């Protein structure tokens, strides 16, 4: 299974390493060449030596997406820092490249909810934090 991850931040790179370890083919796209360090961190060798792929490019560049393997991808994860970039690139993956599973990180709970209704698989870290904090604070001791 080929997993394409756009955005090699904390979430993107950690998921990338887990997926690679689980035996999947993993390709990461990020506009910052230095983000590669996030991928190398905690590995014995480099990310590439471990079998991973890395492409430098911005998410909306079709050429970069194709180079990173979007046409073969089974899973697409949009995990850049920007909600708006994530929502647009996820729709490109879904509507233009017909990637079977598209997962998109959205920090804003309101839009995460609305785009989920529109058929995107959104994950909202903020909503999870709200739920956990509220539960921790409000559960009787």
């Amino acid at each position, binding site marked *: 299974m080929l997993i394409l991850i756009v955005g090699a931040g904390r979430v993107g790179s950690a998921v990338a390493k887990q997926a690679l370890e689980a035996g999947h083919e993993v390709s990461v796209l990020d506009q910052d060449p230095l983000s590669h360090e996030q991928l190398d961190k905690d590995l014995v060798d480099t990310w590439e030596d471990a079998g991973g792929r890395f492409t430098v490019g911005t998410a*909306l*560049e*079709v050429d970069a997406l194709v180079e990173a393997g979007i046409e073969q991808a089974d899973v697409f994860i949009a995990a850049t820092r*920007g*909600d*708006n*970039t994530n*929502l*647009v690139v996820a*729709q*490109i993956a879904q*509507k*233009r490249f017909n990637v079977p599973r598209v997962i998109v990180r959205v920090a*804003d709970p*309101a*839009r995460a909810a*609305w785009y989920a209704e*529109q058929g995107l698989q959104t994950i909202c870290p903020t909503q999870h934090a709200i739920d956990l904090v509220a539960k921790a604070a409000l559960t009787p001791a």
Partner: protein
Amino acid sequence: MYVIIAGAGKVGWNLARELLSKDHEVTLIEDDRRRYLVVEQELEHAVQYGDATELWVLERAGIQRADLVIAVTGDDEDNMLICQMAKEKYLTQRIVARVNNPRNLQHFKLLGIQPAVSATDLILRLIEHEVPQYGLVQLLALEGERLEIIELEVVQGAAAAGLRVEEVPLPDGCLIISVLRDGGGFVPKSDTVIEAGDEVLLILDPGLESAITPQFTQSTAAA
């Protein structure tokens, strides 16, 4: 008409001014605090501070009753999403989006954001209008209505040169709507004679260009 404009840059601010002077109701939304304070000096309550990609900001601006939403921020992703939410969530009748990077135009189309206006493309078209070296200039494409208006220069010896408008062999779905001659333009009648050197404007169904263009731009004179 109630208009919401996202982005108070040069384009957004001036659009707001023009629309206000034509007695429309306008709300301009700007998410840069310093820019907002500058614009607020002039537009006062017609400008609101906030990120127009957030639903509550759009709702505070009254997007439910907006007749037109214009997204002209400097960020294409923002413009796409603002228009997408306006159209699909709030059912705004009309939207207009600005395309900053012409390479992103394909993404606007993919998401159904129409019309998407790219300054680069507009200037390119103007250049082609002034220097019609390609023979055909597309002046306007109404993609929703599936119509376009093109401009053709009639070359010496073209099949159409010297013919009356009614005699020019044109396919169905196409009409000569204007002739530009000697620095002026007029609407031709069926007996108007097309001359070499004229520029003619045609309205047509997209896809007919290749059938029409040769009548005006290919010389039939024997070599």
